[in-house]
């Protein structure tokens, strides 16, 4: 079945190609699930349907962290980059949180803050690229825009289990997330210890995004589009939303990866480019259809 999907390259069943493709599929699945779950949680946390790791700039924070990790030489340390990416994601998420609690913040203003953070992060990465010797630049650019080709079996398993564990922990918070659907004040009055929950969710989401970005670069719009699509079919309650969003996110990124490799042989499109090309129009459509409702 795998060879059917990937069989465009001839001889799709040599052992070593499985050694290359299996980690890649594993990684795509893990990253797709992780980003979708993170997106859904961010949407509940900030009560903002336009939230997701990429548009809010959290992914770019993770990228800055990962890039910083490479300058520290942590590339070859197990989870070294994931650690620095987590720190980067956390800093940006905290900044976002500070913005979100300002009185009078609207959904669109909040999103703008996220976009600014995203630019800021990208500029920091560009700065790093400018200061370093031009040798690794083009390779780095590929990673930044979303690159699943670096998948190794051990790394992919690490990521897969990390995403699985974190998603499960987030799933266990379904009650709190559901309560947050009608606002923080209502949630408090329904028994949710909101300040504590908020802290924990921010931490968990930053960890999740940090993991995904450190392994595969910035893949955008998955965390936005997948939860929205799934909600249309199963509603907003998280006990059902999170697992299904994870599942469909995994499918989406695996499919995007397939697209990124099949049509421009032997070149590989960065996966993030594919998700952006497909996801950005949907993002726009969501914004416009909200105007109608409002």
């Amino acid at each position, binding site marked *: 079945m795998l060879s059917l999907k990937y069989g465009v*390259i*001839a*001889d799709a069943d*040599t052992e*070593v*190609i499985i*050694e*290359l*493709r299996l980690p890649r599929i594993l990684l795509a699945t893990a990253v797709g699930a992780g980003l979708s779950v993170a997106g859904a949680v961010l949407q509940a946390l900030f009560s903002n349907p336009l939230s997701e790791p990429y548009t809010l700039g959290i992914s770019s924070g993770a990228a800055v962290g990962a890039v910083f990790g490479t300058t520290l030489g942590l*590339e070859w340390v197990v989870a070294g980059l994931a650690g620095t990416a987590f720190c980067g994601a956390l800093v940006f998420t905290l900044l976002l949180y500070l913005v979100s609690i300002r009185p009078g913040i609207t959904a669109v203003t909040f999103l703008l803050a996220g976009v600014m953070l995203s630019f800021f992060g990208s500029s920091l990465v560009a700065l790093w690229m*400018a200061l370093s*010797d*031009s*040798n*690794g630049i*083009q*390779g780095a650019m*590929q990673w930044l825009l979303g690159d699943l*080709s*670096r998948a*190794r079996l051990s790394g992919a398993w690490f990521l897969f289990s990390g995403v699985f564990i974190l998603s499960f922990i987030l799933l266990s918070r379904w009650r709190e997330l559901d309560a947050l659907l009608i606002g923080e004040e209502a949630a408090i009055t329904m028994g949710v210890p909101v300040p504590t929950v908020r802290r924990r969710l921010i931490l968990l989401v930053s960890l999740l995004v940090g993991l995904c970005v450190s392994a595969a670069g910035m893949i955008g719009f998955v965390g936005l589009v997948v939860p929205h699509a799934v909600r249309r079919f199963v509603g907003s309650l998280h006990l059902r939303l999170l697992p299904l969003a994870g599942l469909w996110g995994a499918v989406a990124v695996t499919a995007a990866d397939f697209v990124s490799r099949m049509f421009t*042989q*032997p*070149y*590989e499109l960065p996966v993030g480019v594919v998700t952006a090309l497909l996801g950005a129009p949907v993002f726009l459509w969501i914004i416009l259809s909200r105007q109608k409702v409002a």
Partner: protein
Amino acid sequence: MHSWKTAKNLFTKTVLLTWLLPATVFAGDIIDATGASVSVSDSPKKIVTLVPSLAELAADIAEENIGRIVGVSEYSDYPPALEKVESIGPYFHFNLEKVVSLKPDLVLGTMDGNSKDQVMHLRELKLPVVIVSTENFAQVEDSMRIVSDAMGASSRAAQMITQFRTGLSRIRERASERAKKNSGKKLKVLLQIGADPLVVAGRKSFLNEALETIGAVNAYGDVEARYPRPSMEDVIKRGPDLIVVLALGRKKGPFQAMARDWGRFKNIPAVKRKQVFIVVADPLFRPTLRLLEGLSMLEKIVEKNINAQSQNI
């Protein structure tokens, strides 16, 4: 019983002999430019090159058996026969799966251009990857030797290196003659690789040594980088006497535009004296004997310039 003893004796002698014989007789263990020891078969028949310069070098060494090369990176266009060989993608991000599917018994990569992560990944997949480095001419010679050894043609290396050294010494002689004629004055040359952003050759590129060999001075020879990206103001400050735009590939257009662009900065000595040249630089970038061709092209430009200068005086 007697025959058993003899057999054991013979066996022991053979074993001892194999241990004593030089390693190159058997599956070679090549020590490449990273210091890693790579185990390569005697005469690899399926070679993949990760960068055009190595494709050229490998083709040179393979001579008529160019069919030994089964995979090359994009723009491996010399010798022309390589254009029919399957492409594995651009050198900075080649297609791992493609390389693996070709089932090579030797992969040649370089530290100047290939992504370290990708090359390491190939090693992790148990492919024999031999890596070279070409920061200066000594390393260029080393790479000739390493690649020849890896391809099982060690004798070829000696040949190439001799030719290389001879060619170099001739060029150096001519350079010192020119220097005597000009009372030791050396031209300051800017070697431009790209524009937007402006990319030049720094000290860590072997182009630096190329300039030194032909008796010129690299305008950015003091910058400890391979290909620094200076600002225009910095270039004006350094005031090179000669600007050479190194054109790679077939499209001349962008490089001509680059050359014309310099016209805006009349303060640079090179521009004032109209000493901006485009050089089709493919030969320069290949650590093969074609490097000598490239050097003589540079040489001619330098000569022209010096003559022009002496006329002005």
